[in-house]
């Protein structure tokens, strides 16, 4: 009896050991295709758009979505299945996405790299390490990437940012230029690159300048004092640059400023807050989500500023009440062909967001679930190929 009991114990133990062998490999998460709108014949060159979801910091959940105008299909999370061998997928915090030539560039902030993909397949061509990279612009075969991580000098708390120059043929870093503190968005006008310095890590000593870089010499030639905590930048057809200030979240509110690129001086203040800008023709679309630490409340605005007439022409471009459903507007783009407005809602940042498509008149056309924190949109003139 006793012996039998003992062997029963050993048997149970053995069973456990066998049971303990787990198949360790996880599945690659496939994309989810949703038909959000009827198929439509596409006349103009824009065939679709890519949307880069940031993913919450430290969660490695940056993801890439694609919408195809011809089929009306939204493809959520296309990167892993097309790039099964890319270790840890797209990475941590997608901060910018742009197309240049036949390549799609995704700036992955907390992975410190730029993922370079074929724009037709979204398959990886290469990746370029740029520490704490933020945004990317292009000119004459070169990419320029703003980065918080400039050279570290004696005072570690006074670390300037830089703009890194990348040859788009070789995909190698070929130079860097030190600018202000924590540089954000950039625009290029002629042979000059303008970068908005935020100084967001130096609270309360925010930076308040735009650095001007001469692209011939790739040196900073000037700093234009604008306002604290600068972020977004757009340039219109007349060479006027629109730059936003985030304020300090207390007393100093967000505002939008204009720089004249001929004189490199501040030409005016537009007196509307803006968290994001999108320029389509002469219409400068913006939304602002301003949170006040003093009142503990959010204020959300959707504004259109006409750059020709130089005045605000709309204080709410969402007309059908959908704006009440949008918790945290985080992405904004306007299709240059049909004028449809895309607004991404990041919600609570830790669950999937929603992308809304509005008609030019501000009526909701469709909406779809995205990845976490839908944030950056780029239109493509090449349909994404389906063969993986």
């Amino acid at each position, binding site marked *: 009896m*006793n*012996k039998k*009991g*003992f062997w029963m*114990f050993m048997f149970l*133990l053995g069973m*456990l050991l066998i049971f*303990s062998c*787990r198949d*360790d*490999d*996880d*599945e*690659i*998460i496939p994309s989810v295709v949703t038909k959000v709108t009827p198929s439509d014949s596409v006349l103009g060159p824009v065939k679709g758009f890519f949307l880069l979801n940031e993913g*919450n910091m*430290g*969660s*490695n959940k940056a993801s890439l979505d694609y919408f195809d105008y011809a089929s009306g299909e939204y493809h959520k*999370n296309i990167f892993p299945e097309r790039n*099964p*061998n*890319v*270790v*840890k997928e797209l*990475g*941590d915090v997608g901060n910018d996405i742009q197309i240049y030539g036949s390549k799609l560039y995704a700036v*992955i902030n*907390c*992975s*410190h*790299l730029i993922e370079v993909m074929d724009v037709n397949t979204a398959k990886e061509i290469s*990746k370029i*390490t740029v*520490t*704490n990279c933020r945004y990317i612009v292009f000119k004459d075969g070169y990419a320029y990437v703003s980065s*918080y*991580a400039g050279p*570290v000098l004696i005072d*570690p*708390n006074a*670390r300037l940012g830089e703009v890194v120059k990348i040859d788009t043929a070789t995909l190698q870093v070929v130079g860097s230029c030190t600018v202000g503190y924590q540089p954000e968005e950039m625009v290029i006008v002629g042979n000059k690159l303008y970068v908005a310095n935020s100084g*967001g890590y130096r609270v*309360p000593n925010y930076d308040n300048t735009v650095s001007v870089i001469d692209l011939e010499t790739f040196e900073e030639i000037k700093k234009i004092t604008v306002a604290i905590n600068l972020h977004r930048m757009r340039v219109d057809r007349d060479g006027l640059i629109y730059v936003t200030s985030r304020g300090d*979240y207390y007393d100093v509110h967000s505002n939008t400023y204009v720089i004249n690129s001929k004189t490199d001086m501040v030409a005016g203040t537009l007196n509307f807050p803006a*968290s994001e800008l999108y320029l389509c023709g002469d219409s400068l679309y913006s939304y602002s*989500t*301003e*949170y006040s*630490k003093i009142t*503990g409340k959010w204020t959300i605005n959707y504004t259109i500023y006409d750059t020709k007439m130089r005045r605000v022409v709309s204080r709410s471009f969402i007309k059908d009440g959908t704006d009440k*459903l949008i918790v*945290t507007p985080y992405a904004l783009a306007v299709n240059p062909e049909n004028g449809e407005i895309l607004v991404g809602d990041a919600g*609570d*940042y*830790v*669950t*999937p967001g929603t992308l809304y498509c509005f008609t030019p008149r501000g009526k909701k056309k469709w909406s779809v*679930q995205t990845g976490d*924190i839908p944030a950056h949109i780029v239109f493509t003139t090449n349909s994404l190929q389906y063969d993986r």
Partner: protein
Amino acid sequence: MKFITLGVLILLCFKSGNFLRAQNVDSTKMYHIDEVDVSAPRVRKEVIPVQIMEGKVLEKLSVHSVADALRYFSGVQIKDYGGIGGLKTVNIRAMGTQHVGVFYDGIELGNAQNGTVDLGRFSLDNMEAITLYNGQRSAIFQSAKDFGSAGSIYMTTRIPQFIGNKKHNGKFTFKTGSFGLLNPALLWEGRLSERINASFSSEYMYTTGKYKFSYRKKNGYDTTEIRRNGDVYALRAEYGMFGRIINGDWKAKIYFYDSERGYPGASVREEPGKFKHQDRQWDTNFFLQGSFQKHLGFYSLLINGKYAYDYLHYLSDPRLDVSTMYVNNHFRQHEVYFSSANMFTLFPFWNINVSVDFQWNKLNADLVNFVYPKRYTTLVAVASALHFERFKLQANLLGTFVHERTKVENGAADDMQEYTPTLVASWQPFQTGDFNVRAFYKRIFRMPTLNDLYYTFIGNIYLKPEYTNQYNVGVTYVRVFDKRCLKRFELQADAYYNEVSDKIIAMPTSNQFRWTMVNLGEVEIRGVDVALQGSWRFGQDWLFDTRVSYTYQKAQDFTKKESPFYGDQIPYIPWHSGSLILNGTYKSWFLNYSFIYTGERYEASANIPENRAKEWYTSDFSLSKNLSWKRVGIRLTVELNNIFNQQYEVVQCYPMPGTNVKFIINVAI
């Protein structure tokens, strides 16, 4: 030493069977549990679900910290950031880590700053017992704070015990193994006089924190990396005195802990080996605490007092790691605590207790725009206990009064007063057989932490407390057999329903880098906890103890009705989890096998494939041998943990170690 005598083998057989065993109505008496008491265990029907692990059991489990041991309890989820130095916090019945009160030798370990205690920092070296109560400790003669958490963990350190005429006990332990672990510990106990004993316990720990981990995808990538910057240095020293007086006793303790650790950070995509991750944290914790109790006929008095100082320094320096930005923050916390509990025995079957606690907290930090908060908390508890032979009833009402002040004018949150009740009952329906039914209801809250209220940018002074309501029904059953292999069998099963409302969560403001705290979140938890335990004997020499625990939890997020994820399981709570411990003794050999299972769960409140986390289960083995040489007892142990080298994560992007080993030598005189 005790553990090498045959008597102790018998003791092990019974004594380690205390998983479900409980304390007296007066739980403060647990400090007087006699280690060499070999009489048959008296089974006390606890009115509140309680789980205990005591010295001998803890010794045999191949675990390092209190957090690791708590994984074997049912209804408990540990958030573990990996490695010996990684943060480990406890979540009881899915209500959240900040609802757990952690008590060290009877007095709560506070952390007014962020409300959680890192249980990975408490080693088991000098631990006598770890006890977990759902609701509250089922005594009424206790401080008001003991009534003040939704769930409580009591860590009880070793009390000096002397056999015969011995005047001193000494113990030296050395542990080494994987992760470059060096862990010597020293314990001395002395009899200072007939009525006063003292003990000194000290421990040093160093680990490189390095380990390999892999991520693999089917038909995709396969990568193996090394966890870096997880090194920890820690020093702990404590000195305690224990005195006896007529009809009472007193004790005092001084505690010091100092550590430096690296943050390995989230394991996210980046160019392998490019960035060093060099951010570090230094902690110093000090406390002085004392306790006194005396029984005078129908009146009993318990006084507790404490002063604590906690220092935290965090540094992230781009000179060491180019990818980071410069952050250099220092936080200093002070706490003063005083409590008086007064129990009146009106009739032999009826006790009434009135407790009044006062606590003062202060937080200093070199953050921009910091308001330097101070918190004054007064707690008043009135409790009543009725105990008849087969029926027990306890009820209490806790009043909490909080007043805060800041250096900056108008910077403080409003005063707050809350009254919260608890009702506990237990009933033995049959005259014979040890079968009991119990139930409790408890409403309690957690205060917003000082970080929730005042952290620059993130804090929100308009926060309300976060409430929990708990309803629990359960049974306990114990049976002792004389003639079978199975000597003893215990069962405890509870079903519960919890609500968490006004949950304090972080909400982003206008961008990812700016969050704020808000009262938004409703969670409903339905669960079942089951724990089974058996003691076995085969032949003359084989003794086995088995314990199995199982937890089912359906913890749903009912925050936002419009959300497509309304009603989804909350993050990191598996539906199924469980553990198994097999403990064998053969003469002077000890074998332990322990198994932990955590089922599928989600890493975010959206239950979609992207957030799915795979189940994991680990198997740990340990083998010990006791030797004696003259009057010196030596114990040698080998541990083999995660023997199947399972690669898993408890927290997203924080990989856990694979197979690892540990060697322990223990010398006692």
